């Protein structure tokens, strides 16, 4: 899995990654909910998980990490990486190995 920053529009608030395969998605989301995330489905095929002040928006294997705009500039990368690690942990906990070590793109 690789974490990429979407350099568009709002500074460092939106990041993306992909889960390794379709089968990973549901168990990973369930794991995150068990760890305290709240889950909603505002659109068909689209799941939104609220984790603290931030959100993960999932469609297929695509996961968009949306940080709260209140996150101070200097903490945005750290917060995105923290959520990315939590996501990888959830993938591993779901019994899957495709998460790898995780990489972050520049």
């Amino acid at each position, binding site marked *: 899995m690789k974490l990429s920053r979407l350099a568009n*529009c709002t500074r460092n608030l939106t990041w993306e990654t992909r889960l390794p395969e379709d089968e990973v998605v549901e168990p990973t989301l369930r794991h995150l909910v068990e760890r305290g995330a709240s889950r909603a489905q505002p659109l068909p095929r689209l799941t939104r998980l609220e984790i603290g002040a931030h959100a993960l928006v999932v*469609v297929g294997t695509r996961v*968009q990490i949306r940080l709260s705009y209140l996150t101070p500039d200097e903490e945005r990368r750290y917060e995105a990486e923290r959520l990315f690690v939590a996501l990888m942990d959830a993938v591993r906990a779901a019994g899957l190995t495709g998460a790898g070590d995780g990489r972050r793109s520049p």
Partner: protein
Amino acid sequence: MSDAISQLKSLMPGCDLTFFGGAPYVFHCHHYNLFHDQSVDDVLGEEAGFALRSRAAREAFRPLLAAVFDAAGATLPVERIELATQIFAALGHGRPSLSVSSDGTGVATGTHLHYGFAWREKYGKQVKRFDPVDAVAAGFAAAASELAHGLPPGSVEGTEVNCVAMQHEQCRVSLSRVAPTPLAEPLAERMMADYVKPPQRGLWEDEVAAIADGLRGFLGGVAGDERGLVHAFNVFVTAHMANYYNETIFESVRALEERSPAVVGAAESLFREAGHVCVFNTFGNIILSPEWESMVEKPGDDPERIVMSCLAIARSLGFGHWLVPEMKVGERMVMRTTTNYEAPYYLHRYGRSAKPRCYITTGAALAIAVLAHRVKWSESPTLDQAYYDALFRGDGLGWEAEVTRDQTMGDEVTEIVVSRR
């Protein structure tokens, strides 16, 4: 928002114009909003620009607030002030704290007003700002104060004395009494019949209409968060009064026509550029969003699909009935509007124009052709400033737009032919 107030929202069938309390409103993102206001200030200077923008906001918000107070049965000043604040926040403009005396004077403060906060986010690390940006909040607060205390239109004026864009901790608008000024009668839903034309069917019509309906439904559920901001599609979004946009553009261009006719072309180019900014940022980010992937599709590189998508987005944002009757991929695109949100205002306020005035629509048409042909959507492009410059700056554009018909001139439709250079 209560049911009674929600029911004040309406869609004009066949026209894709949206109204709230009878006042036309549209969705725009912070990139557009900041560029729009910046262009007004460029034309008029900061002081006169702020004065026009706050006046236009006051005039644009008055009918909406009056309708809301009426629907909610809010008669007391305190009820009205509270309700006004809620409405402003629900529209994504921020949640100001309003403290107003019975004579209409007072202050409005806020740490997350849309313009100030978004300016700091976007430009705060690049340039310093000497002047406040929240003319919309100032005008809104003045309108709320007037209506809360039954004061005549134009009798309260908002002046922003502190602004987060100027590195103050919070924005602070001072409300003072002024001699009432007569208001231009604002364009309202009930007057639209004089200006809108029967809808026409364009290419991919059924799909455009269906997607527009779906996206409109989704946008209907979007509202400001606890701070009154809407952070969606990677941008800060507002539902905003169309009369505000129109009055500020047309008044500043007309002022320049009086003062400095030699550079009117540059001002018109700026406002067409605002159309590029809108399409690139708002349309582009919607197309790249997970929500779009869920509702429509993962974007690919077929120019026709991108054009079709953009038309649906424009309709859902309340921009009017946009269609493409003719397109030859790689060569030519004809975009037409039987209704757009600019022309009715111009005709209502000034009558027929001697030249084309649908600036945003024209700029947007060109930008749609550019996004459709030059962006590799399948590669999830980064829609940043550098990419914008590569697409739209100077010779990078590669396409040109010609307005062949324009509703502000009395034509049946507005039509823009976009061709490869």
